[in-house]
């Protein structure tokens, strides 16, 4: 019920329109119900005219028929064609009215549905954008995308189709039943006697059916997963000549999917044939009763004919109700899943705006304690304190999982520390407005992510209308410029799914350029040149040195070449700072830094010796 309320809340300010659409639908149904009456009065008029009992018929006719007779001119010997023409025209009028009302109803409903869904889509996306990062690590992105697409479609169907269909079928049933009852009550009751059974069966069946459908979907998903995995690993498959093995795996699942599909079909064959049989029995029953009443002269032949049309109108759609209700159940689930997102509190975007100010770049971590999972025993960061002075270039080193990226996530307020505080230019960052703070910190993330846009579009992401010179400038610094001429359309080359796939290093260079475009006051490189070759990396560093002159720079890296520009190195391990100092100082200590250094250098040791003599020769 709660979900149902939420479902209708989706309609938002279009609720009134939507209800109006429902009203138009009901009018259409009511008018439609007059159609069989035309047949009825035509038949009775004809028969009675022949037999001269017109007066008697008029007295005995039910309300609706009486009213219709009232509109028509009296039948006399001369005007029977005229009367029939009137009946024909009346029928056309009714058909026109019905068509117009149902068309208008559907259009109004469609308009309000599409508006409401558009609204919901935007609301959902905007809300997602403002959710804290913690949410994204808990919910897999595929699941969230499914909610934004599949579940929205389900809701759209519910509002735009199923509800309307449900109202229509119920309307038809109720009005048709009253129409029949107005002719003859017991006849009407007999004509719908089996309806509850069929309805019950339909509910039961579609309940079962939705279960088997879920199994079907599961098997289908498994099949999709197999294909997907095969395609993404096709190079490995072919390299190992395992095509037959893959085919075997695929065929196995393909069969499983087919068999569930057939089970699903088998449910249907039983349901449709049994309900068809029952409904046909219902019609025979109705005819038998009708014949009885006609022969007992309780109803006229015209009423009998009209009645039969109603009976058929009522019976067959009943089968569909089960399906609609089952599908409506799915909408409740979909709504629930979407509400979960919408009800997750967004990040707090309040705080002091930094717009127009410049950050000097003093960063202070004071006893920071943090873990992604608050109940976890071991903390990701445990009482981490350090200070970075304005303009300093600091490298953070440590094995993976030490908490390096977490430091940056906390600095950007993507997460909030469990204890301790972080100061930026001596102000707690919790008092600063997040968006502005993050813009001031130019963070280049570890995993470079590009949007499917042109290279230029990606670089100018923060400011699409930026001057071309500016783009050239950052592209040169990040060494994007160097590979532009290798791309088919230079700056305009589309990247991602719909275009060229850039190499890891190229992607990293574009993301760096994107960050530089924002003119950050502090630059943070989170292992963001790892896939760039050392030569290019060196050149980038030279360029950054110029660009970030006097600005604070934080570098996370595991390659020593990446941190050779650092004034100071902080070594982090298991959430604690274990070493800190200038690279020179650290080399003297027998710690982590030294160890990494030795490993990298020892790889070269033999050759160094070999080279030693040559170098000397050269220097001489």
């Amino acid at each position, binding site marked *: 019920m709660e979900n149902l309320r939420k479902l209708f809340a989706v309609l938002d300010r279009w609720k009134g329109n939507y209800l109006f659409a429902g009203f138009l639908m009901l009018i259409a149904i009511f008018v439609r119900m007059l159609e069989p009456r035309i047949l009825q009065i035509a038949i009775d008029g004809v028969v009675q005219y022949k037999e001269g009992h017109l007066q008697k018929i008029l007295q005995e006719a039910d309300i609706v028929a009486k009213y219709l007779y009232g509109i028509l001119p009296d039948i006399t010997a001369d005007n029977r064609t005229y009367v029939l023409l009137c009946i024909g*025209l009346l029928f056309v009028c009714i058909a026109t009215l019905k068509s117009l009302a149902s*068309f208008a109803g559907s259009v109004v409903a469609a308009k309000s549905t599409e508006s409401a869904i558009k609204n919901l*889509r935007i609301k959902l996306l905007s809300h997602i954008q403002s959710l804290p990062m913690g949410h994204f690590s808990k919910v897999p992105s595929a699941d969230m995308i499914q909610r934004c697409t599949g579940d929205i479609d389900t809701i759209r169907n519910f509002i735009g189709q199923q509800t309307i269909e449900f109202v229509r079928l119920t309307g038809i049933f109720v009005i048709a039943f009253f129409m029949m009852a107005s002719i003859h009550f017991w006849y009407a009751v007999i004509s719908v006697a089996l309806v509850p059974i069929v309805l019950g069966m339909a509910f039961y069946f579609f309940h079962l059916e939705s279960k088997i459908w879920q199994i079907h979907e599961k098997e289908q998903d498994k099949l999709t997963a197999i294909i997907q995995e095969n395609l993404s690993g096709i190079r490995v498959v072919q390299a190992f000549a395992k095509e037959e093995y893959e085919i075997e795996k695929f065929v196995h699942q393909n069969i499983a999917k087919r068999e569930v*599909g*057939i089970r*699903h079909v088998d449910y249907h064959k039983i349901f449709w044939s049994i309900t068809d049989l029952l409904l046909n029995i219902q019609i025979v029953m109705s005819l038998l009763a009708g*014949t009885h009443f006609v022969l007992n002269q309780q109803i006229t032949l015209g009423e009998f004919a009209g009645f039969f049309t109603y009976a058929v109108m009522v019976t067959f759609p009943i089968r569909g109700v089960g399906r609609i209700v089952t599908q409506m159940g799915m909408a409740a689930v979909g709504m629930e899943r979407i509400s979960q997102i919408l009800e997750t509190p967004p990040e707090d975007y309040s705080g002091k705006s930094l717009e127009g100010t410049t950050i000097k770049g003093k960063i202070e971590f004071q006893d920071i304690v943090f873990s992604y999972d608050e109940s976890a025993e071991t903390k990701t960061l445990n009482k981490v304190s350090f200070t970075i002075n304005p303009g300093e270039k600091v490298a953070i080193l440590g094995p993976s999982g030490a908490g390096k990226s977490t430091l940056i996530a906390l600095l950007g307020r993507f997460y909030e520390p469990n204890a301790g505080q972080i100061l930026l230019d001596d102000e707690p960052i919790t008092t600063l407005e997040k968006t502005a703070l993050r813009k001031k910190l130019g963070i280049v993330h570890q995993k470079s992510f590009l949007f499917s846009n042109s290279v230029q579009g990606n670089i100018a992401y923060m400011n699409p209308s930026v001057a071309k010179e500016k783009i050239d400038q950052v592209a040169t610094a990040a060494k994007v410029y160097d590979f532009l001429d*290798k791309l088919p359309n230079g700056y305009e080359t589309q990247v991602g799914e719909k275009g060229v796939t850039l190499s890891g290093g190229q992607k990293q260079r574009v993301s760096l350029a994107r960050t530089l475009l924002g003119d950050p006051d502090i630059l943070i490189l989170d292992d963001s040149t790892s896939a760039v070759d050392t030569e290019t990396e060196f050149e980038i560093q030279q360029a950054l040195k110029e660009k970030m002159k006097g600005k604070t720079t934080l570098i996370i890296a595991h390659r020593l070449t990446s941190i050779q520009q650092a004034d100071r190195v902080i070594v982090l391990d298991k959430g604690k700072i274990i070493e800190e100092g200038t690279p020179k100082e650290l080399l003297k200590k027998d710690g982590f830094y030294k160890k990494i250094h030795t490993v990298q250098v020892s790889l070269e040791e033999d050759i160094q010796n070999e080279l030693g003599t040559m170098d000397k020769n050269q220097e001489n």
Partner: protein
Amino acid sequence: MDQQTDHLHTGKGALWPFLKRMIHYSLNYKNWLYSFIFWIMITAIVDAIFPLLLLGLIDYAITPQLQLMKAAMENGTTHTTDFAQVFKFLGLFALAGAIQAFAVYMFVRNTGRMAEYVMYDLREQMFRKLQRLSFSFYDRSASGWLLSRLTSDTDRVAEVISWGLLDAFWGITSIVFCQIAIFYYNWKLGLIIFVSVPILLVASVKIRMLVLKYSRESRKINSDITAFYNENINGVMINKSTGQEQRVGQDFNVLTSKMKRSSYRSSYYTAMYLPVVIFIGALAAAFVVFFGGNMAIALPPVITIGVLIASFDYALKIFLPIIDISMFYAQAQGCLSAGERIFSLIDEKEEIQNQEGASDFKDIKGAITFSNVAFHYNENNPVLTDFNLKIEAGTSVALVGATGEGKSTIVNLVARFYEPTNGQLLVDGVDYTTKSLQSLRSNLGIVLQTPHLFSGTIQENIVYGRQEATLADIEQALALVGGQDFLPRLKEEVGENGDQLSMGERQLISFARAILTDPAIFIMDEATSSIDTLTEARIQQGIEKMLNQRTAIIIAHRLSTIKNCDRILVIQKGNIIEDGSHRELLMAKGKYYDLYTHQLREERLGELTS
């Protein structure tokens, strides 16, 4: 296919050839196909008979009784109603109902089965094809596109030739029989309905095509919307870091507005559809009431009341089969492009396949010779022209040079992922195109730059190339690559694409996987560039052992990885510009010397500036 040709699959092709080809798939299941056609026709005929039975009931059972009753009343006698005729017609009614129920059972069963089997066949055919297509195909095809051909495209196409076909047959049979029945009783009333059919059909198809146009449009926008969500959920960190959360919403507004417009239009024409066809049907029914009424009222009556009712019924129902026929047409039009995509994949030429009578390689020793090899991915841009290289069996060769100079092409040619466009590539002195692809590949151990793991356990991934490997074999392979740590973790799941593991771990496993097959030729394409220094050091020792007595071709960006190779080739613009051992090349002070000293200098610079 690739993006360029995908634009060609716009569904503008002819409907008939597509249907003809599809029907071939259905004809594999002749029994089901003919059976469902038979039973749906029975259903349609019974549908057409129902109004006739009602007609019979009224004219032959009820009316005579009513007349007798009236006559009796006028004579002042009582009349006992005779129900014999009534029961006869109602009995027939019940019989027809039972036949129909059985027919429904039969056609649902057979159509459903056929749909599933055709889907199955299409999917399998495409999947088999995909396994045989070469890298050049995958270079230009996005995997998302390929996947949808085996899933949604297949479903839609199979639906058309099963349930769609069923609808079409029902519709056609219905129209024919209703028409026959009504002409039989009265040709004038028959003519009214006869005239209404083409009008209905034209109006139907016209509106349906409009609906199709806009629903196609919204489907396209829908995939853009999905992509947009996908990007901005996966890239939410970037949006937050760059403070673009608000702007994303505005961009999305453009897309959703487009979506709203096209799905509204599609709904608009859908909403128009039924009222229009029902209205046309109602016009026909009005004519029937007028003309039929006149004929029934005439003295003596031209038609009976029963015929009037039945004709009215037919007129009101004639739009139903039209709906089904036009639906089939629209459905078939709608999935024309899906069909084209499917068939283009099935018809895709296999660029690399075994020549007729290709024999298997037996015990490859590993001598590789490039003899005047030329190769290009695209004609205007040759990668290799007249390339010559002889690698003795059991020697390790490293390829060095900048990206895009042709190193990967050389190893891809050795693995026969591509074939030379000119010249020959000899393995153990034999042109490898005369041998079977599988026998070559099963003798290769290949480690690629980005290690791809399949979901499953670590163990399953290691034994991928050799399912029958024992635990001891696995242990040995792991020891060789310095991955002993994995031994207690063999049953651990690696996750989709191996994303539960770090890049270094994945690469270690892919090394173990390659070495487990004990390949005669070992190929590493930038295999160490994605792993960290510590892991590299571990692998380094293993590599040396692995390369012992094995032919190996290694591309590495870090020169430390390759210093122990027997030969180092410096490749530039598809040519070998230097060839020799590490020591020899250093002495020569050429390009390799430059590269090497440069790398070392950088390392040292790191020390000096600190």
